[in-house]
């Protein structure tokens, strides 16, 4: 187990450098005139252009720029955004709120998906099963650009049940509505996977054995069926967590949450290479760590899986 983790961590270092290099190269290739992008529609004086070009090393070649960036990164300095803010500060401002938002979304999605999925799996073809099928289809079919403003209008403005926007230091209550909207992105797939998995495991031999042994129904389903059914669901949740963090651009915009999605969008729009690479680097780490945890969870759920 220990050796496995060490091996995975070493692989992560390689993946990390590879990913940042690729993102840096892409941003470099897409960079056209970041100084003009920075000042918007205003004209820019030659001496100002000169000063900014030198401040951000924009006149160096790709490898020199990448070297400057990596040198900073390895000494814990994420560099300076073209807006003159320390990227480390921006990361520190943006990550907590996105992390809270996506964790909350995951909890909401997983709770609904697993509970409803188990019930649907047990009572296939029932009214409940068909109803959840229909509802998840509707939610799945609605793009988030419609769902988010709609939820805001109905539950925030018209009914007044939830706060309309969340903001940077939003608490659990402000984040509940955006997190639910975000959860709707993934709840349908998670529910379907749970349902299929439960349905399949119900027919397994060990379930028949368990029933034959005279175990209570709750124990059969709660321990024998559910535990085995969770493996594919956990995999899915692991992947979803990453997707939710990077994919929250729309939700963050509608509910005014200045998180990771917002910063990525801003960085790409203003051709702010270091900003994008900084955020993506952290995203890469999150993805890798989450996937490691998911892999380790397999072993917890299924004793037959061992890592050497």
């Amino acid at each position: 187990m220990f050796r496995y983790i060490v091996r995975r961590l070493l692989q992560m270092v390689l993946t990390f450098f590879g990913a940042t290099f690729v993102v840096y190269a892409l941003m470099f290739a897409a960079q056209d005139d970041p100084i003009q992008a920075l000042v918007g529609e205003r004209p820019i004086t030659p001496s100002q252009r000169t000063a900014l070009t030198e401040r951000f090393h924009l006149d160096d070649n790709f490898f020199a720029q990448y070297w400057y960036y990596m040198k900073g990164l390895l000494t814990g300095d994420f560099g300076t955004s073209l807006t003159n803010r320390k990227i480390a500060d921006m990361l520190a401002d943006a990550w907590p709120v996105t992390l809270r938002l996506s964790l909350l979304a995951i909890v909401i999605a997983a709770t609904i998906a697993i509970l409803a999925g188990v019930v649907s799996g047990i009572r296939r073809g029932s009214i409940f099963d068909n109803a959840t099928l229909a509802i998840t289809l509707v939610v799945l079919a609605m793009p988030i650009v419609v769902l988010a403003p709609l939820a805001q209008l109905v539950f925030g403005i018209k009914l007044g049940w939830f706060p309309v926007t969340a903001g940077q230091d939003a608490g659990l209550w402000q984040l509940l509505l955006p997190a639910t909207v975000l959860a709707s992105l993934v709840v349908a797939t998670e529910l379907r996977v749970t349902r299929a998995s439960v349905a399949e495991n119900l027919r397994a031999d060990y379930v028949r054995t368990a029933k034959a042994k005279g175990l209570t129904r709750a124990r059969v389903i709660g321990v024998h069926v559910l535990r085995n059914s969770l493996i594919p669901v956990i995999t899915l949740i692991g992947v979803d967590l990453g997707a939710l963090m990077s994919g929250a651009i729309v939700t963050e915009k509608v509910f005014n949450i200045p998180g990771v999605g917002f910063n990525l969008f801003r960085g790409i729009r203003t051709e702010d290479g270091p900003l994008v690479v900084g955020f993506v680097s952290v995203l890469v780490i999150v993805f890798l760590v989450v996937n490691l945890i998911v892999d380790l969870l397999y072993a917890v759920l299924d004793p037959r899986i061992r890592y050497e």
Partner: protein
Amino acid sequence: MRGNGPWKMAAGVAAIALLAAGCSGGSSDDDETLPNTISIGIVEPESLIPSNSTEANGSSVLASLFYPLVRFDEQSNPYTVAAEAITHDKANKVWTIRLRSGFTFSNGEPVTVDNYINAWNYGAFGPNAQVASYFFSRIDGYAQMQSVDPDGTGPEKAPEPKATTLTGLRKLNNLTFTVTLSTGFAGWESVMGYDAFYPLPKAAFKSEGVLADNFGDAPIGNGPFKLKGTWQHDSKIVVEKVADFKGTVPKVDGITWKIYQDLGAQYADLVAGNLDVETKIPIESLASASGDLGQRLQKSPSSAFSFVGFPIYEKEYANKDVRRALSMAINREEMTDQIFLGSETPATSFVSPVVAGYRKNSCGQNCEYNPTLAKQIYTAANGPTDIKISYNSDGGHKAWVDAMCNQIKASLGVNCTGSPEPKLADLLKKVRDHKSVGMIRLAWTMDYPLMENYLGPLYTTDGSSNFYGYTNTAFDSLVREGSEAATPQAAIKKWQQAEDILADEMPVLPLRFGQNVYGFSAKVTNVSMDLFQKVDIYKIEVAN
């Protein structure tokens, strides 16, 4: 972990997640509103250093923190505020500014002439790369403070500029100084109303000519409000009243500038009553806004001017009759009504209605919708059969560009297509390289309320935003003569003559004048907006 392990784990994970979500959410004192304070929505400012701010959001916040030398009355004429008197010599070249005594910065430092001179020198010094640096370019000695990279974008470093201070600034005593311009300019007093001309306290500087690291996040000004804490990026900027402020005292005790990434989210908060003023109602909410807000939805003139530039360097557009015909071929009114829902007004002049000297319809017949005449002229001039209008696709321009193309198609019977570029920077790069882009979507908002601020940058040969390469020596000299004229009235006369040349030559096709379309909550009253897209913080008050 056996048996009910997974359940325990799930519960554990859920508990951690909820804790993480709940704990750092300091929602306790955020929404606490003091009785006489208001909130105004903005977008994250680019900078809160006066000489580094050229957009309305930063400018709004700065207006609460600083007290300008001059402000502008209803007719856009300057009147002194922090200055007691501003006088000038006959040639409009040497300006003497006397400050009001007794003013202090919010940290207690008295405001003296040195605060102005140091701030302006900092803003003008090329290597500081301040975006509003060009405001100082009229002052003597500006050119010596700039340096040019010898090899352009190459690796070689630019040399240090020859000077670090403006030779045109001279201190006479603690409250009086003179500004010497390189050439006379009648409108200089108006220019000094801009943000770049605010003073900076001694505390702003780490050493001579170097700003303290955190000053941009916690600026200290000479204005009616002071910052509470620091700028909370992407979240909010809170300002509170300065005790015993010597100038005009605002009616509210504090302002929270709430930062939004999106105008739609801002509008939702306005309607829900979480925000007091939104300075720009998004177009997609305009249809429902009068229902949502009623009397609390208002319009006021702004200085924005939208137009389409003709690439005069291209053969097809070199003939002015082609340009005239295209201008007559479009129905401006229909565009502002149908697409902008009346939030903008049709433009038939080359300068905005907000500046003194503006004449309605100075473009005359050339800006009147007349498809038959347009077609005649166009055919006679042998205009191009394929028209292209280039625009940046990140600014919501597609709808009107397509509409304009349809009008051109209908009127002239030629083919017309809108051609999107990802960003304005991409578009301008192509224009600079004289690539074939067709007509170019452009816009301008003024820096100071003078006709010259439209005529100079947009249409003179070396104008900073004259991307389309229009050049006319008679026009250039009229603009210059106007700038050097003895009185504002004489200046306006010259500038109007210059504008007449534009009406004849049509280097651009005037389209629309912007308006501030703003809304406010029932909590506030007396909300008005100025020409610079800023809320008048001295007038606004909390309703009883």
